[in-house]
Structures are given as structure tokens and as C-alpha cells.
């Protein structure tokens, strides 16, 4: 039996209201028709290149987008819609964010107090991550990169979160440190948390995650099982295949063209201009996700 779905996002779109010359208003769509779900005890990697809207997804779930953002679509937490009011109550508790860098800690506050005002609880969580309790008395600028990573993890663990959203937790880390960080998230998932891991390092994520949602220009083109990345044939979407081929050990072959920018997105399938399977159907309308071999794909021609 599959575990219960902790978070499901369907048909999500995020756009920013902007004022151009004069008072002309336009909406810049940065996320469109996005679908993901994550279950208890599972790590879902959200992978995609820079600018594909990964961090915005995290901010949209947590309800901390700037005021000029317009969010549409359905976000459900444990089956119930995650309204603004509900998320305001849950964030920092059941739903936790693990940010990406030291910049996310107050530079003038000792880290112990930032993790939690409850000193004994902090000590317990620090012990879990092999941090001395004296670390709590340090300021963020006094921590090493590895310590910082563990402190940031501690902020999520201390609240007993059921849903953890980790936003690019590994860039700039050595292979060894990154592996250790991934292992921390794997442990949290094994203990029953649902983890969304936002990353652009697919290669690293493959070893620790259950499923991978592939992002392209603000939408999910495919959600594949981690094991599907064993060979190109198991993958479904042409972009995922292109991504697979671009991984160094799989040939390191790039695909022509670049990801379109928000504001100049093509109609229909966003990948169509670079796609080798492109057909007439691809040019019109959003493509609903289809289930193929245990994964989801948004492509008319995927098989």
C-alpha cells in the first residue's frame, strides 16, 4: 500500500503583476500548469536548470511570495486545500523550509536562538547532527559551511515537520559534504517526513530520492522514478531524455537552444521549439499529465 499523499499541487501557476511604461499592467507568468505530489516517507526531487521556477514553487507552497504575485491552481496539504490562513499557521511547524545558504540566518543573532528559543530542544537536535552545544552561542558568520548546513537542517527538524522543503541545499559543497547533507534528508524521510528537494544536481539527487519531477520553464514536464534514470529508454519526456544525455557519464551531449524566458513563452508545449518529437498538436493549449509506467508526463507523443 502506498503512503498517504502529504502535499499535492495541481495546475499551479504563478504570475507577477508588473507595471510597464505608464500605467499599463501586464502579468508575467513564471510558473504554469505545474503538477507535483509527495508522499509520506518519500523524497521528491524537483530538478531543473536555473530560472525554471524551482524556488518560486517553494515560496508559493509556503505562501511567502511577494505581494504582487498571483497564485492560481490547487495546493492541498493532507487532502485539504492549503489556504493562506492555513499555511500561515502551519509554516515553521508542520511545514518547514530548509534554505540554501547562510544568508537566510539573521547575521546578528546567535544561531541557537534562531533554531529555537527552547535551549534544551536545540541541544537535542544539535546532538543529532553532531554539533556541540557551544555552536548555539556562535553567530552565523562564525560557522563553517558544513556546520551551517547542519544548523539549517536543525531548524526544520526541531519543529517536527511533516513536510520539509529543501531549497538547493547542496551547491558549493564538496562531494563528501553534499552526500552527507543528502543523507540527512534521507534520514528525515525514513522517519516519516515528506521531503521536497529542490536541486539542479540530478546526478547527486538520484542516489537519495524516490522520484524526480523535472522542471522546464516553470512547468513540470515529467515526474519519473529515480530508477528510471538508469537508462534513457525508461524516461518519458523528450526534455528529460535530453537532460539525461547531458549528464557527464551519459555522454555529456547538450541540446540545441535555450530555455525560454518568462514573458516570451511559446503557446502550447514549452519545450516544443527544441523538441525532436514535435507535432501539430504541440502548438496549442496546455498538455494534461498522463500516467505512463508509474510516472507522469506532459507530452502528446511520449511513450
Amino acid at each position, binding site marked *: 500500500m502506498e503512503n498517504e499523499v502529504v502535499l499535492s499541487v495541481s495546475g499551479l501557476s504563478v504570475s507577477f503583476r508588473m507595471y510597464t511604461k505608464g500605467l499599463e499592467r501586464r502579468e508575467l507568468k513564471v510558473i504554469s500548469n505545474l503538477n507535483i505530489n509527495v508522499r509520506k516517507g518519500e523524497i521528491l526531487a524537483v530538478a531543473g536548470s536555473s530560472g525554471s521556477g524551482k524556488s518560486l514553487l517553494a515560496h508559493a507552497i509556503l505562501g*511567502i511570495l511577494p505581494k504582487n504575485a498571483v497564485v492560481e491552481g490547487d495546493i492541498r496539504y493532507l487532502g485539504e486545500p492549503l489556504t493562506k490562513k492555513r499555511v500561515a499557521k502551519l509554516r515553521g*511547524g508542520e511545514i518547514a523550509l530548509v534554505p540554501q545558504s547562510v544568508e537566510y540566518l*539573521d547575521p546578528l543573532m546567535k544561531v541557537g536562538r534562531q533554531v529555537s528559543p527552547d535551549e534544551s530542544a536545540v541541544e537535542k537536535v544539535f546532538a543529532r547532527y553532531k554539533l556541540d552545544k557551544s555552536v548555539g552561542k556562535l553567530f552565523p558568520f562564525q560557522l563553517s559551511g558544513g556546520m551551517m548546513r547542519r544548523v539549517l537542517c536543525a531548524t526544520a527538524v526541531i519543529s517536527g515537520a511533516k513536510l520539509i522543503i529543501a531549497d538547493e541545499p547542496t551547491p558549493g559543497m564538496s562531494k563528501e559534504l553534499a552526500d552527507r547533507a543528502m543523507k540527512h534528508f534521507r534520514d528525515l524521510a525514513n522517519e516519516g517526513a515528506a521531503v521536497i528537494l529542490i536541486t539542479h544536481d540530478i546526478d547527486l539527487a538520484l542516489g537519495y530520492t524516490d522520484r524526480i519531477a523535472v522542471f522546464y520553464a516553470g512547468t513540470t514536464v515529467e515526474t519519473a522514478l529515480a530508477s528510471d534514470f538508469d537508462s534513457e529508454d525508461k524516461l518519458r519526456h523528450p526534455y528529460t531524455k535530453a537532460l539525461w544525455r547531458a549528464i557527464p557519464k551519459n555522454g555529456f551531449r547538450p541540446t540545441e537552444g535555450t530555455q525560454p524566458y518568462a514573458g516570451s513563452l511559446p503557446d502550447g508545449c514549452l519545450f516544443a521549439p527544441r523538441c525532436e518529437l514535435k507535432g501539430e498538436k504541440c502548438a496549442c493549449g496546455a498538455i494534461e499529465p498522463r500516467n505512463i509506467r508509474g510516472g507522469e508526463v506532459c507530452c502528446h507523443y511520449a511513450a
Partner: protein
Amino acid sequence: MSRKIKSISIYLVRVVTLLIAVSVICFALVSLSPIDPMLAYIQANPGVSEENIARMEEFWGVNDPPAERYLKWGSALLHGDFGVSKIFRRPVIEIIGTRFAATLALMLAAWIFSGVFGFAIGCLMGMFNGRPLDSVVKRICLIMCSVPTFWIGLVFLIVFSVWLGWFPFGMSVPVGVAPENVTILQRLRHLILPALTLSFLSFANVALHTREKLVEVLHSDYVLFAKARGESNLSVLRRHGLRNILIPAVTMQFSSFSELFGGSVIAENIFSYPGLGAAASAAGLQSDIPLLLGITLFSVVFVFAGNAIANALYVLIDPRTTEGGK
């Protein structure tokens, strides 16, 4: 501990060298000025014979080489002898003492007012960044920044003293009341207008700088993370905002000691407030060289103290800034 002693001794060396430098420059300027100290001294007693003038010049060493005169003056200063004021006919050190007490009350009132209200209004603007309240108050602050002190002092006098009659026209105590009979309340009433005038400039400065910093802090990643962890806007301001935005306000406040001193010269003249500022301008206008030099040296120490306090506070507020950059 040894580090503290080291940094304190560094400050002592700095203030001593600064005093020597300023005293040399001031001495040179006075020597070059057209003021003849002899003439200035005997102005009040006409009819002194040529012979007596020559004897007094000999006695004072007016015609000695400048270096010798400077050393003589310097060693007198070291012994606490700042000379006798020509206008007040009292020792300079005594005048500075009594006058500074009055000025300190004035400056302190202005300083606290501009610090507390400037900071609070800056916070308010920062919280309402971009909204009508912010843009209106910001404009008011910008106007306040550009208004000269002497002008606003006159406006205050006209409006609050002449038209409304809420405050006295000037002085630090009511006219015709013996000093021992003056109440605290009367002193405060005399203090309010000059203090407001003096605080006008730095008030807006503190508010605008605090606003900028708060807007920056509120857009920072750590505030975003704090919100992601369920902190409310008010808690964000209290827990993360205040300490992070304190630095510019502290810098403004303590480096404004020099502006306070300069401003007090103007404010005290407008309100006939008998403080150090009024004494300084009187000394300048009436060629009272001992008093002028004494006040100059005193103001050097005063401004230096302000900057030194600011430096010490930085380390307390922001542990990343330590002496020596370690």
C-alpha cells in the same frame, strides 16, 4: 582584557595627537589673524601709555618667536590654565564649565528627541514602504533635511512664542527671577524650542537612514526565512529588524556631535540661550582669543568622544566588526 587596554590606549594616543594638531593649527591661525592681543586687551581701558604697553608686551612675550609662545601656551594648558576670558573677565575653564552644563541640557534634549523619534518614524516608514504613509512622511523628512537651522529657529519663535505664546522668547530662565528660585519646569519650558530647532536636522537624517536600512533588511533572505518559519511581521521587526537597523542610526547619532555643536551656536544665538555655542560666537566676534581657543579644544574632545562611543557600540551591536578587523 589586554586587548581592551590596548584599544583604550590607542584611543588615548589618537585624542592626544589630535589635540596637538588642532592646537597648532588654531595657534597658527590666531597668530596670522589681524587681531592684536594687546590692543584687544586694553580696548576696555583706554589711556594706557605707550611705555606701559611696551612693558606689558615684554611681560606677555608678544614679540617672542611663535614656537616659544606656543610652548608657553601649551605648558600653561597642561597645568590647567586656559587663560582669562576678555569678555567675561573670568577664567576660561570656569566659563566652559558653567556654559557647557546649559548647552549639554540643550544638546541632550535635542539628541534624544532626534534619536528616539527619528528611529521610530524611520521604522514606521520602513514598515509601510511604498505606501502613501511612507511617501508622505518621506517627503516631509526630505524637506526637513533641507531647511536651515537658523530659519526654522526663527519660524518656531514667530509661531510658538509670538503668535501662540506657548513658549518664552528666549534665555534659559525667566527674566527677573533669582537663579535659586527657578523651577525645573521653567527651565524645561525654556529648553523646548531651542532643542526642537537643534534636533530638526538630524531627526530627518536618522529617520531616512533608518528607513532605507529597514527596507533593505525586510527584503533580505533572513527575513524571508523568518516568515517561512511562521514569524509575523511584528515579530520579524522585533527579533530581526531592530538590531540590524541600529547601526546607521547609531552612526548618525554619535557622529552628529559635531553638527550638534555647530547647530548650538546658531540655536543659542537665536534664542539668546546662554550656552557654550553663544559664548563661542561672542568670543569670535569680540576677539576673545583665550575663550575661543579653549572652546575649540573642548569641542575637539567632545566630538572625538562621540566618534569613539560610536565605534565602541558597533562592536556591541555587530560582533562582525571588531577592532583591528579580526
